[in-house]
Structure formats: C-alpha cells, structure tokens
C-alpha cells in the first residue's frame, strides 16, 4: 500500500505546482494522474498568464478587472491574494526555465487580453500552458527523489477515516488493472474541470470532472456550479479553441453582413470585453439571423500583420489549417461560443482547504472563488499556479502536524466490487456508455449554455436524472485488466452525471443573470437577492442547496459595462 504525506491527484499545472510546493517542505509527496502528466489539459491554455508586473501596472488594477469580470461573484480576499502573488510566480517560472516572450530589451513582454485594463498577459507564443507545464514536468523529473510519480493511475474514490478526515484514495493502475488504497495525510484534488459534460467542448476527453465528483460523493461542498464559461471563439462542430490572444493581437469579430458587431455590445472594449459578454453578443447575432448559415460568426485575423501571426499565433495557424481547412492569414474563420471552463467546483478557502479536513482542491477542480461568474482570459493558469502552490504548502504543513490515520480497507473493497459489477454487466443489458454520454452532452449544450431559462434547465435536469438511472446498467465490452479504457469510461460517465446534476440544480436555483449564468426569464442581475454563492452538498436525494456570503473587501458591486 503506497503511502505519502501529501498525495496529489491530477498532474496538470495545479497538481504539478502543488506537488513541487509540498516537496519543498521536505515531506513525502506522490502525484497520481490518469494520463501521463504532459497529456494534462493545461496544455490547451494558449494565450498566456496575467500578472501586474509591468511598471505602471498594479495588482489592484488586476484585482479590479478580475472582480468586475467575475460580475462581483468572486471572493475579493482570494482575488487579492492571487493578484498580489502573481508577479512573483511569473518570475519563479521564468527562473525555472519557461521561455516567455521577450520585448526588445530582452525583458518579459506582454500582450493584451480580454477584460483587462492593461496589457499584462505574459506568454510563450500561443503555447503558454504547454510551455509552463512541460517546464514543471522538467522539475518533477529533476526532483524524482522527493516526488513519486504514478503516471496512468486512475482514482475512483476518496477514503475518509472515522473522524471524517480524508486519509487516502482508491486507485486503479491502468497498466495492469490492480486496485490500491493509497494512504496520505493530505490529499489534493487537482483534476481539472468538467467540460466533457457538454458536447461540443474545447475540453479534452479526460476533463470529466473526476475531482469535483469524488469530493461531492465524499460529502464536500461544491460552489458556483452553475457558472460554466462559454468561450467566444471555438470552431463550430468540433469545439476546438481559438485563443483569445487572436483578439488580443487585434483580430475582429464580424457577422455575416461584415459588421463589427461588438460596437453595439461593448463600444469601449469591443472584442476584448469579458468572455461572457462577447459570447452573448455572438449568440445574439446568430439567434437574430445575422450569423452564417452554419450557426457561426467570423473571426478575422487577417488584420493582424502576418509576421506577428506566425510568431505569436502559430498554433492557431495550424488549428485553422488542419481542423478547419482555413488559412487564417488570408481569410476569416467561422467560430461560435463553445463550452470551455468550469468556474465553480469544490469549495475551498484561500489555502485550498475544503470542508473535509485533509482534503484540498486546486485549479479548475476548485472554487476559491477567484473567477466568480466569469473568468477572465489568462487568469486560469494563474489560478492553478497560485492556489496549487498554496494548497501544496498547506497540505505539507498539515502532514507535518498530524499522525497518519489508516483508512479502512472497506472503501477499497467497495470500489473493487463496483468495478467488478460494471465489468459483469452483459452486453445488451442496457445502453452503451457512449450513447448516454452523447445524449448528456447535446442536452446540456442545448439547454444549459449561453442563454438559459427555467423550462430548459428543468428539462435538462430530468434528462440527467434519467441518464443516471440508465448509467447503472450501461455495459462495457472490455473485460480485461490491462488498459481497460472502456471500464474507466463507465466510471467517468458517473462523474459527468454528478457534475451535470449539480450544474442544473444550481442554474435552476439562481434566478437572476450574472456572469455566465444568463436567464432569459430573469435577465437582470439582482444583487439584493443573489449576491451570494450557491453551495451544494450531497444528501440522500441529491444535491442540497445552501448559500454563502461573497467576500467584499474594497470593491462594491457596480453596473458592469465594457
């Protein structure tokens, strides 16, 4: 039975940063990931990472932009911490070897991004997430003595001791199918978001909300689950992401009549308004018949100088060429809003602590909350690193403080039985996992997307609950032990459905429009009743609703225009 002081689940940016921070404190660290760490979805963060590091910029300005972007649902104490600590984190990454873009003087250079009042986005071409994550993985290889890596191990459940504290995780070694109970004094969930609940999505196939679902099942509170970001520029049908960096470099959004329609929605910031605003503007154009017949509008990158496109947006040149057959340096590319980011997640404090002692969450899995109702571009990488580091540090100091408690073997046995039960379902005994997943994704994209209303959300919720029933009998073809992806898919489907149910319940509950939650039946923001978080906790019947205060330090809610 492997045992570590700190066990990190997930090896994207938040997980790797947490592991390195914990290891710095001299405790024993393990990092578990269902894919090889460099396959993690942090790779997909293209545009950059925000920090107020330029002379003349200030963390207060960054914090204000973030809070305004969040539609005042972000907790301001957490936002302050993130924005204050951002510059130091960027420098730390630079010292580790991240190949950040330089200005002519050879110093760190920036680009503009949406919702920001200054150019404060640091970047590596348009592979920023990949570049940072590969550098962190370099550090994990360097520190192999202090951080044990469990690459391609899948987690099925958290283990709690008799006091209700988290003391381990049940895992399955994907390579041979063996199940193990890992012991730990602190467990950090850094499993990313739940984009696969929707179809299409910019998210990778691995983004199945594992961490959120495992925490929820263990009794932890979730928060802001209704807040799901639709990114303004995704490829129609396939959902691939076109970085906001394109608009940061000056690209225009055009409707089918060739109008730069953002003039009507955000006359000051135009294409660089916050994402919820731009996505709604696009969807309005499309719904009112000013889009293209394929349900899109156009992103015109030809206005950006070609040399700059090749230097700074090369990945997008490739995405356009390989996945849409469009040379973006010559013609506009058709795009639409698409599912992108989970603002909500496992409720944590500013050190990543959930309300289960010993259980931490960081990155997209967590909801601290710094993003509130809408995340600003280039704040997600920052969130993963700042709160990954803080979680790792706090988890390590907890581990030093407490004695190890042994998780009961019962949880391992229960999980083994569950896995065997899935494998034992006969072919034809129910629906295929892939069918259920497809119905879930298309339903959520139709009903719980940019514009929502009670009837639609209710319908989605009923569908989700029916699919939960059907998932109980969904069968798998693969009965083997080695790399049984079929079986893991069935477990992931369970995670997805729990995530979806929580999102529907919270979206139904919030009877106002704020950030990414736009209710056509309640089109106004209503601070008097709804300037609060919706928390969800599992009870016998499903998610039970409670509320918590939004922390306001120095920025009183104002009307939000761009």
């Amino acid at each position: 039975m492997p045992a570590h002081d700190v066990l990190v689940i997930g090896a994207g940016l938040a997980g790797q940063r947490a592991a390195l921070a914990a290891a710095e404190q001299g405790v024993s660290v393990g990092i578990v990931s269902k894919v090889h760490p460099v396959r993690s979805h942090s790779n997909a963060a293209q545009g950059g990472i925000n920090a107020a590091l330029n002379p003349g910029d200030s963390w207060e300005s960054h914090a204000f932009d973030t809070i305004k972007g969040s539609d005042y649902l972000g907790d301001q104490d957490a936002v302050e911490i993130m924005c204050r600590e951002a510059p130091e984190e960027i420098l730390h990454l630079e010292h580790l070897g991240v190949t950040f873009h330089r200005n002519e003087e050879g110093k760190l250079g920036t680009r503009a991004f949406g919702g920001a009042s200054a150019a404060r986005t640091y970047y590596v071409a348009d592979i920023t997430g990949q570049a940072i994550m590969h550098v962190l993985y370099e550090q994990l290889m360097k520190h192999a003595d202090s951080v044990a890596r469990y690459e391609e191990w899948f987690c099925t459940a958290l283990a709690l001791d008799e006091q209700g504290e988290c003391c381990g995780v049940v895992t399955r070694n994907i390579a041979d199918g063996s199940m193990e109970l890992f012991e730990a004094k602190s467990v950090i969930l850094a499993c990313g978001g739940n984009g696969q609940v929707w179809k299409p999505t910019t998210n990778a196939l691995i983004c199945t909300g594992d961490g959120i679902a495992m925490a929820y099942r263990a009794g932890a509170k979730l928060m802001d689950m209704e807040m799901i970001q639709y990114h303004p520029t995704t490829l129609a049908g396939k959902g691939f992401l076109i970085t906001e960096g394109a608009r940061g470099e000056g690209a225009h959004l055009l409707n089918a009549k060739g109008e730069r329609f953002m003039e009507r929605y955000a006359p000051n910031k135009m294409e660089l308004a916050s994402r919820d605003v731009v996505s709604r503007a696009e969807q309005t154009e499309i719904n009112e018949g000013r889009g293209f017949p394929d349900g899109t509008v156009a992103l015109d990158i030809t206005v950006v100088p070609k040399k700059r496109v090749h230097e700074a947006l090369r990945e997008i040149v490739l995405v356009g060429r390989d996945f849409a057959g469009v040379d973006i340096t010559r013609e506009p590319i058709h795009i639409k809003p698409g599912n992108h980011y989970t603002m909500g997640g496992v409720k944590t404090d500013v050190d990543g602590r959930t309300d289960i002692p010993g259980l931490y969450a960081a990155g997209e899995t967590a909801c601290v909350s710094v993003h509130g109702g809408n995340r600003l571009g280039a704040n997600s990488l920052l969130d993963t690193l700042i709160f990954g580091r803080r979680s790792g540090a706090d988890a390590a100091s907890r581990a030093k403080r407490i004695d190890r408690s042994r998780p009961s073997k019962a949880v391992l046995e229960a999980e083994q039985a569950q896995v065997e039960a899935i494998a034992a379902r006969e072919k034809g005994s129910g629906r295929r996992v892939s069918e259920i997943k497809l119905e879930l994704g298309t339903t959520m994209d139709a009903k719980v997307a940019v514009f929502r209303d009670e009837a639609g959300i209710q319908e989605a919720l009923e569908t989700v609950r029916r699919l939960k029933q059907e998932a109980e009998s969904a069968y798998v073809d693969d009965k083997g032990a080695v790399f049984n992806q079929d079986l893991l898919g069935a477990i992931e489907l369970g995670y997805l459905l729990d995530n979806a149910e929580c999102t529907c319940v919270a979206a139904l509950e919030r009877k106002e429009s704020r950030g990414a939650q736009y209710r056509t039946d309640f089109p106004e923001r209503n601070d008097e009743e709804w300037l609060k978080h919706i928390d969800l906790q599992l009870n016998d019947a499903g998610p039970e609703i409670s509320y918590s205060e939004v922390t306001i330090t120095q920025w009183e809610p104002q009307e939000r225009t761009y």
Partner: protein
Amino acid sequence: MATYTLKVRRYQPESGKSPYWEEFDVDLDPSLSVLDGLLQAKDRDDGSLSVRCSCRAAICGSCGMKINGQSGLGCKTQIGEAHAAANRRGGTNGAAAPILIEPMGNMPVIKDLITDMESTHWTKIRRVTPWLLPHGEAPEREYVVEPESMIDITQSMACIQCGACVSSCLSMEADPDFIGPAALAKAYRFVGDPRDAETKERLHDLAHDPHGIYDCTHCFSCIDACPKGVAPMDQIMRLRRKAAEEGVDDDPNNGANHVNAFVKMIEKKGTNDEALLLQETYAPGVKGKLKPTKGAIKGLLGSLPVAIRGIKTGKMRSLPKLIPGVHPKLPGGAQDEVKAIYEHTEEHREEFNLYIRGEEDVEPEPDETKMEETA
C-alpha cells in the same frame, strides 16, 4: 459523410493471441480525423479497441500511431486524406484500400495502439538532463536575454512528446540505444537557452556518447513525422554546429571531423570523394601533412567492412575509381556555384525557425529581402 474502412493492427495481451488485423467500417465526414474514426469504432462496435487520446486537437500528444505506415497523430490526420493516401497505395483486385493503422514503431506494444513510451521515449528524455541548469543566484527580476533566443528554443518547446519522431526514426531502428530525435530536440531546448550555464558540458556529453548527436543519419523521417513542426533533425544539426562552435571536436565518434571533412570536400570538389572522405575524417590533412586523430587506425579499419559492403552493393564506386586524387570534376562552372552557395551561407547564418519566419516562407525562394527581415 462517407464510409471508410480502418484496418487496425490489434494486440490483446490477455487473450493469448498474437497480434492480428481487424477491419472496422466507420461513417464520418472526410474532414474529421482518423482518431474520430477509431473512437467511432470503439463507441459503436468494440469498446476494447484501445488508443490513448485526450485533446483531439494535436496538443496533448497522446494519439501517436502509424497511419498507412507514416508516423503521426491520429487526431491531426484527416480521415479523407488518409483514405486517399491508402488508395494511392492501392487496394487488392481493384477494391478500395483500407486505411492501415498500427501502433508506433521503436517501442514495445502494450495493447492495440498503446505503446510503452516510458521504457523508450521517457527514459531517453531523462538521459539528456532535461531541466535548466543555471549557475549562481537567480536575478531579482527575470533573466534578461536576447528576444530571438527565446523564440529560437520555442520551436523545441513546441514538442508535445507524442513520440511520432521516435516511431519513425531509422537510426533508432538500427541502434535502439540512439538517444533519438525527441530527446535531442529537448536537449537543444537547454543548449540554446542562454540561461543554462552548462552548455559546453551538455554538448560534450551528447557528442561523446556513441549513441548521441552523431548517430543521426539525416534521413528526415522525424521532420516528416513531427506534427508540430519541431523538426527534430534540425535541432540535432544545431547541436552539432553548437558543439563545433564550442570547440567540442574531440569526440570518439569522430563526428565533428567527419562533418568538417565533408564540408571541405564538397567545397573543393562538389561531390563526395569516398576514399578521401574516410581519410580526411580520421586523418585530416593539415598543410599537406596527415594529422591522424586518436584511434585513426582503428577507425579506418573499422570502416573497411562498411566500405566493402558499399562497393558490393553499388553504393560506392568501384575500386579503380576510388584511387585517392582521381575524382571527376563538376562540369562547367558548377564548382564556382557551389563556392557561391558556401559564401552565401557564411554571410547569412540565421537559422530557419518556424516561429520567426512562418511556414509558407519556408519554400525555397532566393529572396534576400525576406532573410533580412528576420535578421
């Protein structure tokens, strides 16, 4: 929407069966990917069909595989194009050829399209000390470096560790211990990084390893295979040039001497004079006198079997034509043109880099203004 046949090389380790081929018919839009086709087969027909995949957008590097014999990413290969390529290869008896899909090469297969990258790829990556080695205290702010230096190594940073280059590497097929294209491209990411303080040590290490930078045979397979334009072979050539610049020319492989011998010979004669190449590699002539390198005799003798095989198979010219000094000259003024190319190259030493120049400008155009733009 069209129907395609995928012919997949399958291996189910728990079945006790040897690897076998299985065909799946899938229906999808030609603009979708081979991976989309595989996932449809997995979702509809057989959930045990195993393939690593995640992002579907050529950024995570999971779905390295061979498609019609060519290493690449399943998600980045359009199924319509793969179908056309298969048909160019030709079907039997006039039938449409299926799209052939196999696991990557140069790696053990675990199950179906899933290979063991840890024992090959990652072990080699760790071989090159893949982390930054700066000296002294970090500065209070960022390291101040040439902006171009960061853009230069960003080409290596663009590597997603998918293994397609390793899969296609012909040198590694001959020498499984070859450090290989991915790991050497990774090595350049540090060698080219001005913040790294152990450039010379790294170069010495990679040049002295018999499976290091001189084990590459310039076959271009890795450049063809790489889905991200990293051009691993170019990075290996940069390592060689850097090694020469840093004075690392005493490698036991005689790699640096071989390079110099070749460069000098082409400048002088225009084509390869095989007899002279061997001699110049092991005992370069300095002002008319031979100056044998360490181990020259051993090296020369060691090369004999290769030379004999070369003559036998017609890859080298016949013996009488190999008498040193007897070598046909290039016709007309061609030798002057070769010299002009050398001079031009000396004057324009900027290195091709996708992040500086962009793809379409890669087309060979003798257009100097373009080169100056990037300088």
